[in-house]
């Protein structure tokens, strides 16, 4: 395909209509994706600010930067914001919303108005959380354990709980839209086995969103009722059971981590074939592994409770199942690696993020095995080892996937190319900064430093200083893309329809796409990832 003549006058979804009303009342999935992009970036900054406070306090063993209560609020709100207002929506609500209809050859999602509603629900929940923050914040830890949260905490537990309850519905509606869209809106010839793996992964994610989120919704409702109406459901002195809360909480919150990682895996499955110029190795296995992760992921929640007082026998069962759930993730990593074999690999920014993802997700996933191992978990549970583990998978994994995806589809979304040199530099800085921040935390966790500690014994200081140093580098790595992506909107090279010569229906329409995605409904007669039929991308595109 010769580089198309880019007419900046051509109508696309961005210039189709002007005015704030056309954006706030849009039902175009692509515009809604951008609305989400703005809001989640906003919350990422706030969550990141709290991370900054934490790492600054932890530079010294003494609690000398802020009060203990302030610190407890900082880590609580860092966790809640990052999990519920950034990670869980991020890829599905931005990239999923934008791409899924195009990837399957549809004009929009099944329920465009519900899509817009889901964004407004997110915004309303976010506003309530800001209110909670502004009026004192919450200090229960992101996990809200009772009876501390239901009886003892003097902070805005009700507001925080309600806010997360509300944002859950945004998640549920997004998932609902995706599932129905994939079932009912595929273009002629787009069979299940021709779907991009991005769609398969998001389908699995949506199942988890649908079935898991309502459980935390009702759990938070019960905590709110307990606090406001003094019920006693979780209060042992009135016959209640605080451990029941933990079961209800983790029944959602464990599958939630798969909501956070599966979309990143979705992105990987698109980037790696493209920059290896090869179909994915083991398509069916990668597709099925997403479903397996979703299914088994619902069966492992009590591995967060091995020392919480559950019975020995249930601990054995949950440990076993937790090992089982590692297998499909490993299968994906091996398949991605094998995709590079005998490929034609180029190191664009998205590919750098992808390779970084594979490495960091491998470490994160393997350290999860330490936590699944009963005898070892007893020692490292509630220490920095756990913090390091989940940041490796959530930041080294999910966020790298998010950034890689943003760069990969940036030309499609904005119609502009980002500066490749800066992109690669930022990826490198993120990788280095990330490892320096979180690897020392494995060590200090094994040495016994508990989590959620405002002050700590002096022998842990060196590791903490290393970690904070890494965080400052990581921050630079995150700020860079914000700057140059914005810069590219005005000064970036206009993007052709398919700068990467990638397969996928989204690349067969203009960059940026027209409002209804395609000029004609596509009819699909080819398999996914037929890279042998694709020409190579322009030298220019890759070497910028």
């Amino acid at each position, binding site marked *: 395909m010769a580089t198309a003549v880019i007419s900046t006058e051509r109508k696309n979804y961005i210039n189709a209509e002007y005015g704030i009303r056309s954006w706030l009342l849009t039902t175009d999935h692509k515009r809604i994706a951008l609305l989400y992009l703005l809001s989640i970036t906003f919350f990422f900054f706030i969550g990141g600010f709290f991370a900054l406070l934490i790492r600054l306090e932890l530079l010294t063993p003494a609690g000398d930067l802020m009060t203990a209560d302030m610190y407890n609020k900082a880590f609580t709100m860092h966790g809640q914001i990052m999990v519920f207002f950034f990670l869980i929506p991020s890829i599905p609500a931005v990239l999923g919303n934008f791409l899924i209809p195009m990837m399957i050859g549809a004009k929009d999602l099944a329920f465009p108005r519900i899509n817009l509603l889901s964004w407004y629900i997110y915004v309303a929940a976010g506003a309530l959380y800001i209110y909670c923050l502004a009026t004192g914040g919450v200090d229960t830890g992101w996990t809200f354990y009772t009876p501390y949260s239901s009886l003892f905490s003097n902070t805005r537990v009700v507001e925080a709980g309600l806010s997360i309850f509300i944002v859950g519905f945004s998640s549920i509606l997004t998932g609902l839209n995706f599932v129905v869209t994939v079932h009912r809106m595929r273009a002629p010839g787009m069979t299940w086995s021709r779907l991009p793996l991005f769609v398969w992964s998001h389908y699995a994610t949506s199942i988890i969103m649908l079935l898991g989120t309502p459980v935390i919704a009702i759990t938070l409702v019960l905590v709110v009722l307990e606090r406001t109406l003094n019920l006693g459901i979780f209060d*042992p002195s009135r016959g209640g059971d605080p451990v029941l809360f933990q079961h209800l909480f983790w029944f959602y919150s464990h599958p939630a981590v798969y909501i956070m990682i599966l979309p990143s895996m979705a992105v990987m499955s698109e980037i790696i074939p493209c920059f290896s110029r090869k179909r994915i190795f083991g398509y069916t296995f990668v597709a099925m592994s997403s479903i397996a992760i979703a299914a088994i992921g619902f069966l492992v929640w009590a591995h967060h409770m091995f020392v919480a007082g559950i019975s020995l026998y249930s601990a054995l069962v949950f440990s076993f199942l937790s090992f089982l759930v590692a297998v499909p993730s490993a299968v994906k990593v091996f*398949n991605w690696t094998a995709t590079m074999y005998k490929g034609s690999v180029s190191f664009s920014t998205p590919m750098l993020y992808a390779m970084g993802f594979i490495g960091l997700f491998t470490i994160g996933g393997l350290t999860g095995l330490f936590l699944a191992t009963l005898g070892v978990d007893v020692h490292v549970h509630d220490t920095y080892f756990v913090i390091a583990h989940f940041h490796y998978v959530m930041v080294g994994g999910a966020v790298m996937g998010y950034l890689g995806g943003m760069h990969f589809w940036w030309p499609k979304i904005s119609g502009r190319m980002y500066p490749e040199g800066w992109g690669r530099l930022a990826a490198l800085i993120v990788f280095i900064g990330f490892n320096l921040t979180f690897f020392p935390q494995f060590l200090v966790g094994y040495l*016994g430093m508990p989590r959620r500690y405002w002050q700590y014994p002096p022998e842990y200081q060196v590791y903490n200083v290393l970690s904070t140093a890494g965080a400052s580098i990581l921050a630079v790595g995150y700020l860079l893309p914000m700057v140059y992506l914005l810069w590219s909107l005005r000064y970036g090279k206009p993007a052709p329809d398919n700068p990467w010569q990638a397969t996928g229906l989204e690349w067969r329409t203009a960059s940026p796409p027209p409002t209804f995605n395609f000029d004609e409904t596509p009819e699909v007669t080819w398999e996914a990832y037929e890279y042998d039929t694709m020409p190579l991308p322009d030298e220019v595109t890759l070497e910028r």
Partner: protein
Amino acid sequence: MFDNLPLWPTAASSHARYEDWLFLFLTVVSAAMTVLIFVVIAIFAMKFRRRHGREATQIEGSLLLEIGWSVAPLGVMMLMFVGGAVLYFVMRTPPRDSAQVYVVAKQWMWKLQHMEGPREINQLHVPVDRDVELIMTSQDVIHSFYVPAFRVKQDVIPGRYTTLWFRATRPGTYHLFCAQFCGTMHSGMIGEVVVMEPRDYQAWMLNAAPSGTLAQSGMTLFQQLGCNTCHVSETQGRGPVLKGVFGNPVQLDDGRTVIADENYIRESILVPAAKVVSGFKPIMPSWQGQVNEEQLNELIAYIKSLSPAPAGEAVTSGAPGGTAPPPPAQ
């Protein structure tokens, strides 16, 4: 190793050695796997990087490989599972003749009571090479008793007893941390475990326990509260004889049979009507509100001391199924 840059936590218990080997095994496997992936990717990236005139070879997949790299990791993981399960089983099964210490956690301190009598706050003295079992409850929120050097940890829950046991193998002083977020001074709820040679421990014990053992205090309390008027020593009074009761089955008047463990004794003191022994009238008064946690511990220790079996039975914590929790804590 280095004072301000420790590389490995001290291993000071019988659990620790085993746990460290297991951890090492996991680390070696993980490191190997990580290096393998990193190296393979690096090799592929270099060997198969984009070059003029060389096209990618399209490969669908390989069923053999898929099965191989699913089954092999699963096999290795089963080794991890078994290793962890065995250690966990040992950790959750306190030996019969453990020395027991009662622990009450509250925001934001640890209160400990030895059977021999001494009470401690935020400190635990134990003799080396002796099995020690901690029987713990919380007065308010969930805490967690964590000694990194021993590699042990157990959540401490209000309204219930949970247990943890260890055998210290090296004299020294080790960190004690609260490991479950419990409010403002969660990070201040720390202390130390002091492991002593037996002789030093005896000396410390004599100094620290002028008032006698826990069971002796319990006996005094038993008489002060008038329990002995119904629970007479040798002959049947209005209440059952308590000698030999602890650790053995008790037949109740509604046909149920329960084991007389710490939870049962505690409930019988606080809500006697919940379980009435078969053949007796439900006339025992309740002491709810009249005895605090420490006094309950003393009474339980005394009643235990009346049983011929060594006082080392583990409290069933978190039993499967819907075992009723003990009655409200104070």
